[in-house]
């Protein structure tokens, strides 16, 4: 009995069977000679059995219907604040849509490409080397400098898109979300 305090804290592990062999043997030896611990362990065994058999209290039958009705009502009357709507439209939806990311990337790359070509054609002094290259390419391949710039730009655009197509997948992986099919 004198040693009981030490073993009482181990009842959970003893009943779970998670004590290591040495402790288990020590405890068994103690329990064999200790009527208090023996009695407590017997009571605990009975308690767990009783807890498992405790008759289930059932909710009223219409509880599920009431929950669904209440949630449907909340859904119908919900008016999100302008801030949450803005967050939804500007941040959440684009993040969940691969198409949005690709379209945004295409628009930005095409805009840059257009500005680049426009600058080369109208103001060659800003980028003399690029303008020379463009003139040389157009004389070798044929077609005007604008056409050559567009072809070169399209190649870069293709490479960019290949990289950007992976972005949403990486994004989803980073968010720890797996695909839910058909949802």
């Amino acid at each position, binding site marked *: 009995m004198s040693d009981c305090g030490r073993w009482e804290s181990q009842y959970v592990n003893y009943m779970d069977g998670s004590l290591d062999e040495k402790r288990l043997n020590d405890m068994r030896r103690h329990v064999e000679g200790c009527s208090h611990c023996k009695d407590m362990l017997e*009571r*605990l065994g009975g308690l767990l059995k009783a807890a498992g058999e405790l008759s289930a209290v059932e909710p009223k039958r219409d509880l599920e219907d009431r929950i669904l009705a209440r949630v449907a009502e909340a859904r119908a009357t919900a008016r999100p604040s302008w801030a949450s709507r803005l967050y939804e439209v500007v941040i959440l939806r684009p993040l969940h849509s691969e198409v949005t990311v690709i379209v945004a990337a295409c628009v930005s790359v095409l805009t840059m490409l257009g500005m680049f070509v426009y600058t080369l054609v109208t103001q060659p002094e800003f980028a003399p080397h690029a303008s020379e290259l463009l003139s040389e390419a157009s004389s070798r391949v044929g077609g005007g400098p604008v056409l050559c710039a567009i072809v070169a730009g399209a190649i870069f655009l293709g490479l960019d898109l290949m990289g950007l197509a992976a972005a949403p997948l990486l994004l989803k992986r980073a968010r720890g979300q797996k695909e839910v099919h058909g949802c």
Partner: protein
Amino acid sequence: MKYRELSDEELIYCYASGEVRAFDIIVSRYTQRLFRFSVRLLGDAQTAEDVVQEAFLRVHMHAGRYKYGVAKFSTWLYRISRNLCIEELRKQKRRKAREAEIDAAQEIVHEPDTESLGAEFDAMLRKALEALPEEQRTVFVLRDMEHMTYEEIAKVTRARVGTVKSRLNRARNALAEELGPYVGRRRK
């Protein structure tokens, strides 16, 4: 789509994405379990039903915030319910302080279920359970009645596994002491 084949986590993701019917499956899966859990913490069926309704309402409101892959949906749901039960217990405590005469109302009141609550030992166990501090009661209910793992209980209660075990130990010892020889006799 066959929603019933989806996991809880997939269902809540679907619901957050606008699939309203996914919520019906979640409700049908968890209503009884949450009710049993709440009634054992609160000791009152009517209040437990209110808590379950409120818990699902909060799931609906915060479905978009559920962190997929970080915690199990059931852990999240039990945590919401537990917090609501604690809130309710605090309210009850304040009410009791004001109205000492409602002590008698501590018995579980639920007309359709009076028959199932008849067994003497069940009533004793319920009463002893109600007398435990909330933290110990929660751990006992989750482990010995809902059969959750220590790790899951630790997440629901936001405590360490060691703390969970020590609370469980104290709860079991207190109940075994309280129910005393009745438990031993019943076992035989």
